């Protein structure tokens, strides 16, 4: 895999109480192999915590992993916290079990990409590269 993301920094985060972290870890490993620096929060983090770490660590993008159905609330809250902390320029992408009907709403609210389990990793990577280009 090309080192296409060399020099980029990412925060991969698990907001809320959902404990399914494999998708988050797969993305973290994939980004790291593409040359990026990756921080993974671990489970059960609040939107405020995630936004604070993202700003402090000066990341280029935050990836949120959600499989509990609470994505709309938690994504909205994390975006709001980022703006409040002057992190509005940090891109956000979201993955997990996100019903198709919610994708557009998330994109409209400021999310740059919504990824589901059956997408190829190379396609996900290409979208992430594009959003940071």
């Amino acid at each position, binding site marked *: 895999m090309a080192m296409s993301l060399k020099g980029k920094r990412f925060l991969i985060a698990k907001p809320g109480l959902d404990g399914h972290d*494999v998708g988050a870890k797969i993305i973290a*490993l994939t980004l790291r192999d593409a040359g990026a620096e990756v921080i993974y929060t671990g489970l059960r983090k609040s939107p405020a915590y995630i936004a604070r770490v993202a700003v402090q660590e000066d990341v280029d993008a935050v990836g949120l992993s959600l499989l509990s159905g609470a994505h709309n609330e938690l994504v909205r809250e994390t975006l709001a916290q980022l703006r409040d902390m002057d992190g509005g320029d940090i891109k956000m992408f979201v993955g997990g079990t996100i019903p198709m009907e919610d994708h557009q709403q998330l994109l409209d609210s400021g999310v740059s990409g919504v990824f589901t389990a059956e997408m190829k990793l190379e396609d996900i990577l290409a979208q992430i590269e594009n959003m940071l280009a």
Partner: protein
Amino acid sequence: MRSEKKQASPANPLGGDSGLFTPSGIEIPTVVTPEMVSREEHEIPGEYPFTRGIFPDGFRGRMWTMRQYSGFGTAEESNKRYHFLLEQGQTGLSVAMDLPTQCGYDPVDPMALPEVGKVGVSLSNLAEMEILFRGIDLGSISTSFTINGTAAIIYAFYIAAADKAGIPRAKLTGTIQNDILKEYVARGTWIFPVRPSMRLIADTILFANRETPRFNPISIAGAHVRDAGATAVEEIAYTLANGLAYVDELLARGGEIDRFAKRLSFFFYVHADFFEEVCKFRAARRIWAQLMKERYGATDPKSQMFRFGVVCGGSSLTAAQPHNNIVRVGIEAMAAVMGGAQSIFTCAFDEAFQIPTEQSAEIALRTQQVVAHESGIASSVDPLGGSYYVEYLTGRMVEEIHKVMKEIDDYGGVIKAIEEGFIQKRIAERARERKRRVDSGERVIVGVNRYQREDRTEKMGGVFKGQVFKVDPQTSREITDKYNAIRDKRDNQAVQTALQRLGEAAPNESQNLLPILVECAHAYATVGEMVQTLKKDWGEFQEPIRF
């Protein structure tokens, strides 16, 4: 195991290396000859080491329990669904709880609010448990609770609900999952550090052995580890290793092997690779029986019997072309039966992308009923026993499972391996490898990387519009209103007294906490209150971040 030299021929009609290796990486011989099979095909069902099944008469004596997982929103809505399922001929109930209940937060907690009533029912106190089973005789049904971090508390609610309904505790049957070790590894609803959690689990099992002898106080689960990415071999190996850790803890807390071992049960996924799934259960029964007898000196055959339930579906299901999942689940249910499962949950075909509808849930149950009553596969015990391939693969899986278990032993045991994130890291790597093989087409998944349709509108919501079950936005409000009402109505003095006793008992390892938790339940203390009380002394698990 899969070697570098044996690359799949591109001409393999099965596709990639599908068909040349099992998903665990065991090479599959083109044909197995009698010389390749050990003498163990002469084993008999119902006799040690139970490879061919724990009962001499298989399903003739007793049909497996058809147990569908459900529960959502309010206790009232779930109660209605349970009445529907019982009327449809389902023989056991399975309760899904929302994440706040599972992680020990009351519904008004800021961490809980976005998740209240999602993925399962909110059970913050005894009143909700009473509503959940309204009109259902707790003495005549078997209930399975998928609960871990707060299992002791939910079990205490169930006992208190039975007490209040005048049902003798000895009549209660069912299961609490109560398996914290795999939560640290894969499912994530841990609360306390590993060691006090192990004590709480042992307390629950020892109390249940006395008070509710027909109730399974633990279901040691490999399912989540598997669905997260582990192979079938690792699923069994990690789960047996966890099982041994519980046995050691129970012995250390004064338990007797022939008293508690017969109430240990297990829970696994069945994915679509038919023979590997059948053989993993045959292998697991043999290994567990040998460990119980030889390492722990269990003499009662019941203590040596490996009893398990399964779930068919999970990550083997796809959001693409979702009707294909009905076929997958059918194959998996057959593997579960041929593998000798005691209870089966068949996932609904739409589960990969939504909460099942009544229609999809019904098809899932009917799938089992067709297998049970039409296919004929349940008529003779272990009908695949003696097949050269099945006996060969069973033997190979036994070898591979032992290897993985030894690896954990060499690391310093399963608790150390979990505390340091060793197993977590392994599973993440496996998950990524599985993903890579699907992406590259090495592992064929129909509809995903082969025979796809360009028109992706059928995927997800598309064709099912109008049938997507939605949690009512009012649900969370109703639940918090009920919660506040109970806190106003209950005898708060009694709650404080009970919680104080709990707090005093927490550091005292010689005391079993369950009688006090039942007392707290009766007083209508909440999940959050009990968890907070225990956290004061025990603290919280610190997740190792390794990836």
